[in-house]
């Protein structure tokens, strides 16, 4: 009897931890997706200036890559700047 109560607690604990991890993962996924979406919007406006041709030019591809990576660099700088205050 005691054993089964312990087992019950163990099962509840496991289920709880599992749900917590899953929730965190879902929140992370939502954040990543939102960031990619926002960044695409910003970099699209910056890099894709012409009407869409049959294919991206290599310049536009490079611009998109640079835009995303510089945005990351900027986020680091801003985070550091806030830490200083």
């Amino acid at each position, binding site marked *: 009897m005691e054993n089964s109560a312990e087992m019950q607690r163990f099962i509840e604990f496991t289920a709880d931890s599992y749900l917590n991890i899953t929730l965190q*993962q879902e929140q992370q*996924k939502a954040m990543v997706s939102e960031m*990619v979406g926002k960044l695409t919007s910003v970099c*699209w406006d910056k890099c894709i200036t012409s009407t*869409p041709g049959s294919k*991206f030019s290599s310049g536009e591809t490079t611009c*998109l890559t640079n*835009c995303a990576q510089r945005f990351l660099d900027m986020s680091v700088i801003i985070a550091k700047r806030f830490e200083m205050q």
Partner: protein
Amino acid sequence: MFISRPATHSRSSGKTLLLGPSPLPHPVSATTVGSKCFAKCVTKPGSSLSGSKSSCISRCVDHYIEATGIVSRALFSTTR
């Protein structure tokens, strides 16, 4: 890249737990891509969408999705 994996989670027992991680939500929303491509392709709205405008829009949507892939690779690829 954003193709969803099946929502299953394998355990070491070999059994499959159905309550698994969900697929990554797609970062491109129809409203966003719509406003971007409307701005690019429909500069002077006429009485109907001409053929050239609709083909511009479909190219634009493809490009926008491609751009999303490029941005996400730039952010998350390990070789920077």
